[in-house]
């Protein structure tokens, strides 16, 4: 028997679906939940048991916002992810829609189909589509910040400023001393 791990499996299915643009908002949502379940069980829970800190670049809130923006029922997505471990701390880096769009366009040659929300058929222009889709995603995040009590970092500022705020938040949470000097050293 060939050994496969499920994340690789999910990746294969997602790739097929994405290539053929065959994913619906529901199958998009469920495939990502499958992938999340796999990472939760293999990459998140074991280090937690070992007493380590897990830094998660996006968590269930990403799914809540993205799936709801696609028209999936908000309550259903929240219940779907009820198997997830509640994070000890969740930080939302907030930017206005214009900044988000500008940054993405500066970074990439071409917007990806699902990233731009092209599957929704709102606009055949990827940039317009992205703006509309991302606008809805950000609206959902505002709702989530309130509902789940996320800490917010203003992400329009410089990296140093953001990191300073971020460290302050984490230090308070972990009850460790915040060493600003170390940050200055690291970031120059």
């Amino acid at each position, binding site marked *: *028997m*060939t*050994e*496969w*791990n*499920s994340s690789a*499996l*999910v990746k*294969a*299915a997602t790739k*097929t*679906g994405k290539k053929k643009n*065959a*994913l*619906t*908002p*529901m*199958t998009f949502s*469920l*495939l990502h*939940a*499958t992938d999340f*379940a*796999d990472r939760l*069980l293999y990459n998140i829970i074991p280090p937690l048991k070992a007493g380590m800190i897990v830094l998660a670049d996006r968590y*269930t809130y990403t799914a809540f916002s993205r799936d709801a923006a*696609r*028209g*999936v*029922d908000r*309550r*259903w997505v*929240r*219940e*779907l*992810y*009820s*198997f*997830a471990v*509640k994070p000890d701390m969740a930080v939302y880096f907030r930017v206005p829609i214009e900044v988000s769009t500008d940054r993405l366009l500066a970074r990439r040659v071409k917007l990806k189909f699902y990233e731009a929300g092209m599957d929704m058929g709102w606009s055949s222009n990827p940039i317009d589509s992205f703006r509309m889709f991302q606008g809805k995603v950000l609206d959902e995040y505002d709702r989530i910040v309130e*509902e*789940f*009590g996320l800490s917010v970092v203003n992400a329009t500022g410089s990296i140093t400023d953001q990191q300073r705020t971020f460290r302050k938040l984490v230090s308070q949470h972990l009850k460790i001393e915040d060493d600003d000097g170390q940050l200055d050293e690291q970031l120059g």
Partner: protein
Amino acid sequence: MDSSTSSLVEGGVVKDGGSGAKPGSYYAYGIPYLPIDGYPGKIIAIEGTDGVGRSTQIRLLREWLEVQGYGVIETGWTRSQLMQPTIELAKASNTLNKLTFVLLYATDFADRLEKEIIPALKAGFIVLSDRYVFTAMARAGLRGVDRTWMRSLYGFAIAPHLVFYLKIDEKTLIRRVLQSRGMDYWESGMDMKLGDDIYESFRAYQRSLLREYASMADEFGFRVLDARRKVDVIQDELRRQIGAFLAEPDGAGQSPVTNP
């Protein structure tokens, strides 16, 4: 998570996905971007463990319905274009855990629901479903996946108009399976590590599975049929009940031949 929404209470009405759901409507929250109210098609689900003769019955039903002029489509687990290769691979490797397995199956169901079942309902077809969400619930339930969560997960499914449960006893089932194709790894619940002996594992697994189905019979309004009887006897019974349902004013009611 903060949203410890264990109940599916909405507007004071408990929508637990059980008998409360109206046939042809979503069990709970559904798919908001796909309203299905008033779609003329019907879903008829045939449930039961492996070896009860579901596919034979479905083939015969299809012929019978088509002769009467109904449009019919068939659907069954892991038949979605999106998920079939992935699930086959997952089964071949048996390294998936129960949670990811449940979610892969749900994705397969969602794909078929949106791309096959809902369009067929809209077009007034009869959907013959070789197993439905109950199989997923039974398998997950006996593997220890939270039953409330399973029901909420499948809250996007549509309550079938009729669910027939082909009920069999353990002894008959074992003989049938051994006579046909033998016991396989998954049908024997070998992933549950009940024991190394496949025969004993199969027995223990199927026994628990039968218990799971039995516990859902009332909740989801199964019409229970004795699957130990001959194929044509069961088929006659299915046709009688389906015929009666389709003749009701709120059944299909528009049989192109018998109900002009």
